[in-house]
């Protein structure tokens, strides 16, 4: 395993009565692109600010590169931050903004000039060195904010929703650029976002946070395909949440009653017979089949609505007990409104949660 670059140990941050971050522990590896993902108020930005040193944890320890940094001021930490609204110094030119960190370190002028021009080259804004930040577009300001941070060769780069203020197209482009930059620099990136698609695209690992706690930490694929909690499955991507009941439990399978149908899924250790459960099935994992076909899972439904969305068609169907299932179907699917149809999905792509604790959906 690669060395740990940042380690959070039982970190709690309270603002008055509010537990913004509630006893989280996390190890971030050297060179890793780690994303803190969650809705607003989940504690992801507070966590980032504690690593940067702008907030002190109420309890717990923070280690950066094997050194305990709890009491270390932000200007003595070897981390740099790209702020949400860039926070470029409005009274300085692009050159002076980028050179700020080197000036603070008293780097010699010749070396400073060389490094500033190198990094301006890297973000392709060399010709803007004499502009003021307000003479740049949002995307350009973004690049300068990144240049200003990475010029200091930080051990860790912290990014607080850095693409939030950009339009969709530019955001997509910057996502890839940032990912490539991270790979070529080999710096550890800790990236905060509430955009699950962004997290899935860019990250090596994703930390899904909710209400100050960590829900799941894993690689994007596992987060998406095997969400550990109901929160994760509904926060990441679209999904159908269906109510069911456990009918039978065998060695490795559960038989569930879903509406009037019985389906079998993988066993979950904590779930017993007669438990109420929630099933999560992604719309793109559900297919229409003909009545004559036979499958493990075969659910009769009524087609309520077909919505054309360009690359696919969204079909809303209804089970016999009234629960709705949304299917992301190919455009040539042969279903029509107000007719009967049959659905199937793979049983290993069905995620089952016990229903009693959290029935909230998102």
């Amino acid at each position, binding site marked *: 395993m690669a060395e740990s670059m940042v380690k959070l140990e039982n970190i709690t941050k309270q603002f008055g009565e509010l537990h913004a971050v509630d006893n989280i522990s996390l190890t971030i590896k050297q060179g890793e692109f780690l994303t803190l993902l969650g809705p607003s108020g989940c504690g992801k930005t507070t966590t980032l600010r504690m690593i*940067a*040193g*702008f907030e002190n944890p109420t309890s717990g320890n923070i280690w950066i590169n094997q050194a305990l940094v709890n009491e270390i*001021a*932000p*200007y003595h930490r070897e*981390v*740099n*931050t790209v*702020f*949400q*609204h*860039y*926070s*470029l*110094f*409005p*009274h300085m030119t692009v050159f002076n903004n980028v050179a*700020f*960190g080197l000036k*603070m*370190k008293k780097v010699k002028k010749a070396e400073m000039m060389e490094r500033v021009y190198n990094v301006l080259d890297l973000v392709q804004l060399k010709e803007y060195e004499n502009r*003021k*930040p*307000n003479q740049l577009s*949002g995307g350009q*300001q973004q690049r300068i904010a990144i240049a*200003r*941070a990475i010029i*200091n060769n930080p051990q860790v780069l912290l990014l607080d929703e850095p693409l939030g*203020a950009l339009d969709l197209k530019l955001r997509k482009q910057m996502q890839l650029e940032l990912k490539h930059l991270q790979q070529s620099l080999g710096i550890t990136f800790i990236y905060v976002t509430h955009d699950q698609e962004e997290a899935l695209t860019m990250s090596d690992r994703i930390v899904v946070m909710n209400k100050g706690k960590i829900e799941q930490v894993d690689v994007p694929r596992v987060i998406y395909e095997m969400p550990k909690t109901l929160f994760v499955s509904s926060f990441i991507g679209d999904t159908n949440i269906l109510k069911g009941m456990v009918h039978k439990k065998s060695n490795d399978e559960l038989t569930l009653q879903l509406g009037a149908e019985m389906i079998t899924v993988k066993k979950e250790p904590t779930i017993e017979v007669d438990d109420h459960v929630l099933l999560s099935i992604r719309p793109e994992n559900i297919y229409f089949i003909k009545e004559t076909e036979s499958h493990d899972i075969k659910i009769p439904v009524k087609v309520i609505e077909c919505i054309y969305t360009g690359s696919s068609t969204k079909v809303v169907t209804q089970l016999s007990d009234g629960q709705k299932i949304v299917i992301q179907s190919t455009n040539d699917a042969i279903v029509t409104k107000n007719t009967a149809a049959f659905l199937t999905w793979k049983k290993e792509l069905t995620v089952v949660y016990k229903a009693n604790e959290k029935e909230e959906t998102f």
Partner: protein
Amino acid sequence: MRAKTRKVLFIYSLVVFAFLYIPIIVLIVFSFNDSKLGTVWTGFTFDWYIKLFSNSHIHAALLNSLFVAMITTILSTIFGTLAALALYRYTFVGKRSIDFLFLIPVIIPDIVIAVALLAIYGLLNINLGLLTVIPGHVVWGISFVMLVVLARLSGLDRSLEEAAKDLGANEWQTFWRVTFPLIFPGILAGALLTFTLSLDEFEVAFFTAGPGSSTLPVLVYSMVRLGVSPEINALSTILILVVIIAIIIWGVFINKTKDNRGSLND
């Protein structure tokens, strides 16, 4: 806008401007009047200006006023700015009361400050002189500077200071390289305001200046008691000119720094 409304508004504006500026224009015109009586126009002359420049009382009073205004401005600007920074940055018990205490000197009449100071000087057996005027001016000067700087600070994006620290600047470097340049227009505005207010302050200067250390407004008052002399008109005209030039310089400066505001979004 309808043509009639526009016409009414135009006339209304004219009346307002006339109300504001006709007395000043009359004053300027009569400063060039050949007659000693300020009411009838008899011919053009620069005599009053020449007389003004050779009047040693006026020289002394002007120097007194400039001295008081300068010291007042320096003290008020330093302490007002520090107070604004403290109130902006820290929350502490009784902060709201402190905020209010800083407002009081702006609100209460100058005459109250003047009489109160006079009582204290009497109590402490302090001889009145030119220096005894300064505390009375600094009292509200601090409040004015603090209010103006605080307004500037509240528009400042705090993450700029965090960004500086993140890039390795300690508290001191952060202040001088980021905070100070961004609030400087506010500090300058507060300083100019204090300077002009101190320069034409009358009550405190009248009550707390010692004999022979009259400031300009006090001298003007004593001269006017013997009737408005065209010399006073000339003096006022010069003061107006100075103020206009100061305002122009200020405007140019503001325009130059307008792009540099540290507001939240770009």
